[in-house]
């Protein structure tokens, strides 16, 4: 685990090593988090880089009341939403969220990062019943909507819904153990 407190102190003193460690630890996860709002990898990478640049510039005046993770997530979310507004691509965004998941606010303070869970997700998927895994992977890897999955698997849309729910339920149950 990162000693975030010491890294922040190092950052405030202009320690490039600390900055590098923080960058390596959070960059990928933040870009992926930004993807939730703005499905454009290059745009998300630009946003996250400018957030880190700002973090470096304002390091001496930095006051983070919550955690650095929350601070960064909030920054990414706000920047992405700003970017969406600027590009006036709200329409596209809605199309995207419609096929993936309901668009709503996330609990940033308790957010679990991609890299925290990724390796466990694969493990849980392996021990999951085939039917659930199949539906889940089609949704995840190919970005198919429930209707499309139902067609592909020759089952009803309702069945897909149930299988997906079961898969997520199992993931949640097992991942909770890892997260404790």
């Amino acid at each position, binding site marked *: 685990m990162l000693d975030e407190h010491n890294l922040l102190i190092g950052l405030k003193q202009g320690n490039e090593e600390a900055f590098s460690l923080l960058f390596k630890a959070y960059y990928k996860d933040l870009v*992926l988090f930004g993807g939730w709002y703005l499905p454009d990898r290059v745009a998300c990478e630009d946003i996250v880089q400018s957030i880190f640049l700002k973090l470096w510039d304002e390091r001496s005046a930095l006051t983070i009341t919550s955690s650095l993770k929350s601070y960064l997530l909030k920054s990414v979310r706000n920047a992405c939403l700003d970017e969406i507004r600027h590009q006036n691509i709200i329409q596209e965004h809605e199309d995207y969220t419609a096929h993936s998941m309901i668009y709503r606010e996330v609990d940033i303070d308790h957010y679990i990062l991609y890299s925290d869970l990724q390796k466990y997700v694969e493990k849980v998927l392996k021990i999951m019943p085939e039917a659930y895994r199949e539906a889940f992977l089609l949704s995840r890897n190919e970005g198919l909507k*429930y209707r499309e999955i139902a067609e592909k698997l020759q089952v009803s849309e309702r069945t897909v819904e149930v299988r997906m729910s079961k898969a997520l339920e199992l993931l*949640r149950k097992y991942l909770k153990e890892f997260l404790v």
Partner: protein
Amino acid sequence: MINTELHDTDEFINLWQITHPAFNPSDIDVEKAEATIRKKIRRRDYFIMKAFLYWQRLAAVLIIPLIVLSAYLYLTRDVAECQETGYQVIKSPYGIFSQVNLPDGSNVWLNGGTELKYPMKFTPGKRLVYLNGEAYFEVTSDTKNPFVVQTNQMELTATGTKFNIEAYADKAQTAVTMVSGKVDVAFGQSPSIPLSVGTRTCYNGQTGQQTLEQTNPYKWYAWKDGLMIFRDDSLGYVFNRLEQTFNVKIILKDPTLSNDLYRATFEDESLDEIIRLLEMTAPIKFVFQKRSKTIDGYYEKQKIDVYRI
């Protein structure tokens, strides 16, 4: 859509997000991104440094002439001008006596047509004043900080003492009369000599001649009390005194008059009264000239012709 009852929680949204990334996580090149951001930081630091160096160079460009100018002003500074800043100048016009209290507590009486320059605050080691004209000094005793009077052709050094100095810059003669204490006087370029009480020394800047005589000192500084005391003094001297006291110009129509000796004491008498007394007691006659105006519209000094009868 997913079963909302079960899944519409922060936890599930979080889980969904993680398991359904918008783009392939392996497409994200962290190292490349870090290199990019480091380059950005360095380039910006470089510009900041460049801006700093630019200002530094500009400052250097500005500071060199500034130093040269300062050095020039310092080296060529006008000494008198420098001193002017902290100095006080008291002028007593012809016909008027003035009394000055100096910062060290010394008292100075200025006769007509006299100018005294002194610092607002004496520097330690030397209480230096400049005199042009006639003045009577009562100097506060301070052996550590001698009191120095500088005139056109003399430097007088005293610690605590009373003396009278006649040193009008437009007159050849400079004289010092010792009343009490002890002073050292240096005329012109000569070394300083001590003066004792009751002596009067005169120096003629044109001839370089120096005389020393015993005298009744009060006669020489009685002017400060409004008295004019003449004891076998030449009429030339008497007329000088009158000129000084009453701001007039007395013209001797017969040069031999100036050597006639005269004896009198005047106290708070007007010029008219003194002239009347002189005409009564000496074979002379005064004639007031008509006062003429200068081009500026001011009246010139009253001129009085003196004839031998």
